[in-house]
């Protein structure tokens, strides 16, 4: 009930006070669309064959016909693993228009079933599988501590993303638990990777659960203004707080001769 009230008030406030610019800043980092399809774990020979077909149409120009990589352009995918393939494809990071760009989250290029086929094909080339993760087995407190220790430096403590010189760390508002686990194990682009000695499976469950919480954080204080700290707070103080009071001052002080 309290949450509903808060949502209602928040929505009214956001609309009524017209903080459009703020909303842009706050939401620009949000991704495009939540992925509906789950990770494919099937790998029948037909699926692998279908995947190889898709691979040769869509990926071979950079990664090579035999998935052995093209030096200076794209890496060898042997032993890259199904986890990496699922991460890059289900977040729309691959295929990439220009091999030098930072892969960023977009609408996936392939349907869920085609992703399953591609993942089955890359998985058949060896490497770690899609990690199993179950947020419901995680512990929020452990998740918060591990996230602060390992992830907040780049992804920001509320998982709203941040920068590393030369690249940016994406916001995690759209990341599924599986994608979080994949990224932790794979270390995509310039992200560090964490093996089981550093982050064991139980801790990984906890991190996934904590990331889920940050996607819908406890905003006891009202409108969350993007959860990125003092920059939007300063904008609200000036553009809503002081502006409102100035308007009153203007109304009562105008009265001259």
């Amino acid at each position: 009930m309290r949450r509903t009230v808060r949502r209602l008030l928040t929505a009214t406030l956001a609309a009524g006070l017209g903080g459009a610019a703020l909303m842009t800043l706050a939401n620009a980092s949000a991704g495009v669309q939540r992925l509906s399809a789950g990770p494919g774990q099937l790998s029948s020979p037909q699926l692998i064959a279908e995947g190889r077909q898709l691979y040769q149409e869509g990926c071979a120009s950079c990664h090579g016909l035999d998935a052995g990589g093209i030096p200076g352009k794209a890496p060898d995918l042997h032993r890259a693993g199904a986890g990496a393939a699922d991460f890059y494809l289900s977040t729309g990071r691959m295929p990439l228009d220009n091999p030098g760009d930072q892969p960023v989250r977009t609408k996936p290029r392939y349907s869920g079933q085609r992703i399953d086929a591609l993942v089955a094909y890359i998985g058949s080339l060896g490497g770690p599988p899609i990690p199993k993760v179950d947020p419901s087995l995680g512990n929020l407190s452990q998740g918060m501590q591990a996230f602060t220790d390992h992830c907040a430096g780049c992804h920001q403590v509320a998982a709203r993303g941040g920068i590393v010189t030369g690249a940016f760390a994406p916001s995690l508002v759209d990341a599924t638990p599986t994608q979080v686990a994949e990224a932790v194990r794979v270390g995509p682009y310039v992200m560090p990777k964490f093996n089981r000695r550093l982050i064991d499976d139980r801790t990984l469950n906890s991190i996934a659960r904590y990331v889920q919480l940050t996607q819908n954080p406890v905003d006891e204080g009202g409108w969350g203004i993007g959860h990125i700290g003092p920059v939007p707070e300063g904008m609200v103080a000036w553009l809503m707080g002081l502006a409102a009071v100035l308007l009153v001052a203007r109304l009562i002080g105008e009265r001259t001769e």
Partner: protein
Amino acid sequence: MAAALAGAALAAVAFVVVYIVSADTQLLGLSLGLALGCLAVAAILAGQRLVPQEHVVEERPQFGDVSEQQQLELELVEPASGISRRKMLLGVGSLAGAAVGVAAVVPLASLGPSPGDEIGSSPWRRGLAVVDEQGRQLGPEDVPIGALVTGFPAGADPRELGSPVVLVRLPQNQLQLPTDRADWAPQGIVAYSKICTHAGCAISLYRYPLYRPTSPGPALVCPCHYSTFDPTRAGKRIFGPAGRSLPQLPLAIDQAGKLVAGGPFSGPVGPAWWGVRRT
């Protein structure tokens, strides 16, 4: 205006009711804001419409009447005119005043120790084991390539600026340490102070490329002002405002195959101060 006053009363009552029933922060803020806002409207309307609107001309006092100034001057100086040895007394008087002033501020020194040896120091010394946040001793297998690991000196206070280090493992062929540090990186594992040499924040960002040719190279980055250091080249600054390299901690592997310090840091830890040694 009556409506505004009624609104204020209603909203204030709502505030009390919300406080008793649920104390929801949003409803409390809304009702209290409304109550005060309605009162504001009423007061402003009253000020603009209800009471007579006067427009008054008032004389402004003029400051700086010279004869009054002279009078004051005279009263200040006159009583002293009879005193002999005025200069001497004035001199001793100011001396006494200054001395008492100094005596009054000296106790402020109790606030803190002199920086002495403490500043920039570190508990790390040769043979001290590297442990994680839980106190578990770290071995080379805990620092795989591409991971960022935070280590602490065994048995020391982890909150001390000289304590936390970042450990990363790099492929041997990428390491370009100076020759005198050639044996500081067993199995390609290097350790640097985790405290940024610019403003003292924790180096908690690590950039390590999955595929080197199409991404930026390895870097340690501070999240406060984005000073960027190269772990392959002895913590040299490659971007941002930091003025010094990250102090490097020589590493070694002990008999049990665990990581230990091979010596103290290569330089003073933490943000710089006047006169700090640069390396």
